[in-house]
């Protein structure tokens, strides 16, 4: 799958979409939707919530398409919108209330069992499960930094926090992932290839 930030759309298609042509909008949707949803799914975690954020993001895309200045690929512009909506969701009081009602917290999902035997072979490493144990904020910072290529300053700006916040969240995420892959009692060797 092409990374969202690299996706471009022909000017002609974009102009037709701006004019309200449904076919052009459908083309843009087909082009950007998979990568956009994948990103949102990574940051939000929950599929149902991810669909809501995705819907919101795509509606904003078509509403504001005229404002796109072509200074970067359309995917990069859309990524900004998607991440902004994800952070709004993660910060929303309603989500926090739901977390309280469900007995969850910002520590992550402790329900998943951590491997207790020798470290698994690299191909067996379940990174998805490890990611699920991270707190949403730490997971988002990890993804933005390591995969999307944001700097600490950019992450801090997106969260409205300090650079040290971004650095500490990233360090915490790596620490937890390392603890996951290197169960207690084993020598501190990294099992990742």
């Amino acid at each position, binding site marked *: *799958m092409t990374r969202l930030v690299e996706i471009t759309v022909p000017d002609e298609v974009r102009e037709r979409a701006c004019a309200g042509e449904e076919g052009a909008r*459908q083309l843009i*949707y*087909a082009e950007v*939707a*998979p*990568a*956009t*949803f*994948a990103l949102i*799914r*990574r940051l939000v975690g929950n599929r149902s919530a*991810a*669909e809501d954020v*995705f*819907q919101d993001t*795509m*509606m904003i895309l078509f509403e504001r398409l005229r404002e796109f200045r072509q200074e970067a690929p359309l995917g990069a512009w859309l990524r900004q919108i998607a991440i902004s909506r994800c952070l709004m969701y993660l910060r929303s009081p309603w989500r926090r209330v739901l977390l309280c009602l469900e007995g969850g917290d910002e520590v992550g999902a402790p329900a998943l069992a951590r491997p207790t035997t020798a470290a698994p072979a690299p191909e067996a*490493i379940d*990174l*998805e499960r490890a*990611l699920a144990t991270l707190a949403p904020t730490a997971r988002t910072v*990890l*993804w933005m930094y*390591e*995969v999307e290529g944001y700097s600490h300053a950019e992450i801090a700006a997106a969260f409205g926090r300090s650079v040290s916040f971004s650095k500490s969240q990233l360090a915490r995420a*790596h620490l937890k*992932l*390392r603890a996951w892959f290197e169960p207690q009692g084993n*020598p*501190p*060797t*990294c099992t*990742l*290839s």
Partner: protein
Amino acid sequence: MHTELEHQQAVARLLRELPDDAARPYDWREFQRRARAAPAAAARVAGLRALAAVIVITLAVLATAIRLGAGPRPAHPPAAPVTADNGLAPVGGDASRAEREDTAARYWLERLPREPALVHVGTRAAVETLEDHIAQVDDLLTTERAGSAPTERVRVLQQERAQLVNSLVQVRYAETLADASR
């Protein structure tokens, strides 16, 4: 042994290689269907928000009104039986009325807590002085009645007692109003 940096680089590489096949979004038709439904859902949410805002504002207004009004105003005390222009209590048929008014004043005083919610030093001294005087007059009245004193003397003492009770009622009423306005 791998260093922390190598570990982080390995994690970053694995993260970038994670498959996204499981994260397929819904198709264009479903997007359009949800987009059409969005205004109705937004209207419902807006309606709920408006309702919540009205409830909050109503509660705030009520709380403010209760705070400013400080609850029900205390009942006005009954007038003590001081009615005669010459400073004497009425005689005959009016005597029973004076007695009723005296009972009403006493009842009103008894309904008040022995100590006010907030002790006011100035009024507390006045209340104690008045209560002492009333007790002295009561003693005198008992003595006079036991000694078959002239009716005129008893009436004067009764009148004096009524005035003291009246003053006590006024002071306690002022105390009650001061407590209620806080």
